């Protein structure tokens, strides 16, 4: 079990492309950390640098308090699970799982014991004599997990392990991985572009974009207190609604929306009086009907019935659209006019002007 520390890690490719900027992450022992972001954000590169598959251009990487920048991947005591499983096609499942141990010259009976234990944990005991070709995608991914487990490494690295599976299997495997983390109590670093995986699995989530860390926090804090517009929009399904509003005293108004600010919000938005900012509110913070001080009206354009909840796509004035998440119990029809109350306390306001940091990171910061 081990701590992993990334200190001012940079990756610059030989063609000059700066893929990862000054990444600092402290990963505690037994912590499950998720690196999440859109494709090309540098999350996989960061993971591959931890694995030793990519060279670190500058900065320091510590695993278990030892600087490992120049340590060969095989000596870093890590195990990695790949998106396409990367099982050796000519070996049986047993041989696949045993290979890493065999290369490390672990005694045969010890290998046998560990492989059988891992197979039991993953319920793949009956597959050990088969070849990877004969397994389904989900079974292959279990084997890939098993190959990592038998090594009993300090750190587990996952590179989008569930992306090749269908939606249902992805859900099952997600639970499986969470269970595995509980059982093994190991340090895990997990890369994904799926924010649901990030929210459900992570103790700590690192949101990345354009090679910069945007925010690093617990899932609930990321969801409740995003530091900028990107993080606010990235976390959550359906995503947060953004509308341009102008601050006028204790009211934010525009795009057919009126929000009455709380005192705390007003204090922080003082400098923006008379200016346009972006108001962000989550689909579940909109409620249908009734009178309140923060409202908007619109026409229902699309109704998505999901059973436990209903998603409404509402047009405010033909141009601006917002998404509403509500519970069943009301018969929504297309083109119905509805009044929506906005939970002002849960509203965020984002600077419409981009802030350019000295490091080169650009963001629309969250004012409140």
């Amino acid at each position, binding site marked *: 079990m081990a701590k992993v520390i990334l200190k001012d890690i940079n990756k610059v490719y030989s063609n000059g492309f700066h893929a990862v900027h000054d990444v600092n992450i402290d990963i505690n022992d037994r912590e499950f950390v998720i690196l999440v972001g859109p494709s090309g954000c540098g999350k996989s590169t960061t993971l591959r640098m931890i694995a030793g598959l990519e060279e670190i251009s500058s900065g320091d990487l510590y695993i278990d308090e030892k600087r490992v920048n120049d340590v060969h*991947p095989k000596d870093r005591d890590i195990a990695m699970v790949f998106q396409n499983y990367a099982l050796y096609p*000519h070996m049986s499942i047993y041989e696949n799982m045993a290979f*890493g141990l065999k290369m490390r010259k672990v005694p045969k009976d010890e290998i046998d014991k560990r492989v059988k234990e891992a197979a039991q944990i993953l319920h793949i005991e009956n597959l050990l004599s088969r070849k990877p070709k004969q397994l389904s995608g989900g079974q292959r991914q279990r084997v890939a997990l098993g190959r990592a487990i038998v090594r009993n490494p300090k750190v587990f690295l996952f590179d989008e392990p569930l992306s090749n599976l269908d939606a249902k299997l992805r859900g099952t495997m997600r639970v499986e991985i969470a269970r595995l983390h509980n059982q093994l109590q190991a340090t895990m670093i997990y890369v994904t572009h799926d924010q649901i995986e990030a929210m459900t699995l992570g103790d700590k989530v690192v949101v990345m974009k354009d090679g910069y860390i945007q925010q690093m926090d617990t899932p609930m804090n990321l969801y409740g207190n995003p530091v900028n517009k990107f993080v606010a929009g990235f976390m959550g399904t359906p995503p947060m609604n953004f509308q341009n509003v102008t601050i006028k005293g204790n009211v934010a108004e525009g795009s057919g929306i009126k929000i009455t600010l709380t005192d705390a919000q007003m204090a922080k938005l003082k400098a923006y009086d008379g200016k346009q900012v972006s108001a962000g509110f989550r689909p579940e913070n909109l409620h249908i009907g009734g009178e309140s001080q923060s409202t908007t009206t619109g026409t229902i354009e699309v109704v998505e019935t999901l059973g436990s909840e209903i998603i409404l796509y509402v047009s405010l004035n033909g141009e601006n659209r917002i998404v509403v998440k509500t519970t069943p119990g009301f018969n929504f029809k297309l083109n119905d006019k509805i009044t929506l109350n906005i939970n002002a306390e849960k509203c965020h306001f984002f600077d419409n002007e981009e802030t350019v940091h000295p490091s080169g990171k650009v963001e629309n910061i969250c004012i409140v």
Partner: protein
Amino acid sequence: MIVDGNKTAKSIQYTLLIALAVLTLLPMLLALVGGFKNLAQLRLDLFGWPDPFLWENYVDVLHPKRSRFFLSLFNSMLIMSTTVMLGVILSSFAGFALSRIKFPGRELIFNFFLVGLLFPPAVAILPLYVQLKSMYLLDNYFGVILPQVAFALPMQIMLVRSFFKQIPMELEESATIDGCTQLQFLVRIVIPLSKPVLTTIAILAMVGSWNSYFLPLLILNSEKYFTLPMGVMSFASQYVYNWPLVLAYITLAMVPAVIFYMLAQKYIIEGLTSGAVKQ
């Protein structure tokens, strides 16, 4: 209409293929059957069934006192197996370096190998002879083996490289984390996965070496080094009036090559097409 068109195409296809098969098989069959005839029957009735049916020709060919068949067979086998082994080992290493290791000038080196494809051995024969002479390799097994390996390498490297290129990067990364060096990755993962292409180049090299006549004729002078094709020629000139005996010798000389081909034809087709078509 479409069905009819398909039928016509099919029948043309079959006619052509049958014609080709007959063209290939008929001479072999004539040699095989001819070996069981006596000279008189061979002259009078080329296509007929042997009557009387004689085993003597085959027995004579295999008789150590009457022919050097087994010595030539041994020479051919030795030259062939060494050629194949060297070719497979060298092309695996070169193919690995040229497909999976990045270094400056890689493409240039590969193209340099490819130029070898444009080079018919006959053109190089004089400088080759001079070179081998200066290396004291005339009348020596290696005088045949080394040039054979060299002339086969461009094609082998091309096939092996395109096959190796298709092996996913993740496998190499996974093997690296599992603790493999590049050499171990090549030996433990890449080569076992590349059986189809390695079998293909091995078979092509086998057949090429087995049938090679010009190069051994030029390099090998002592009869003790003669390969089977040279044995055929020398036997034929020795027994120029006994054609059934010569046919028996030819038939026996063909047998090993035919056996290799039959055993490995599945792999040959697999290996030749796998490099060309993306999966």
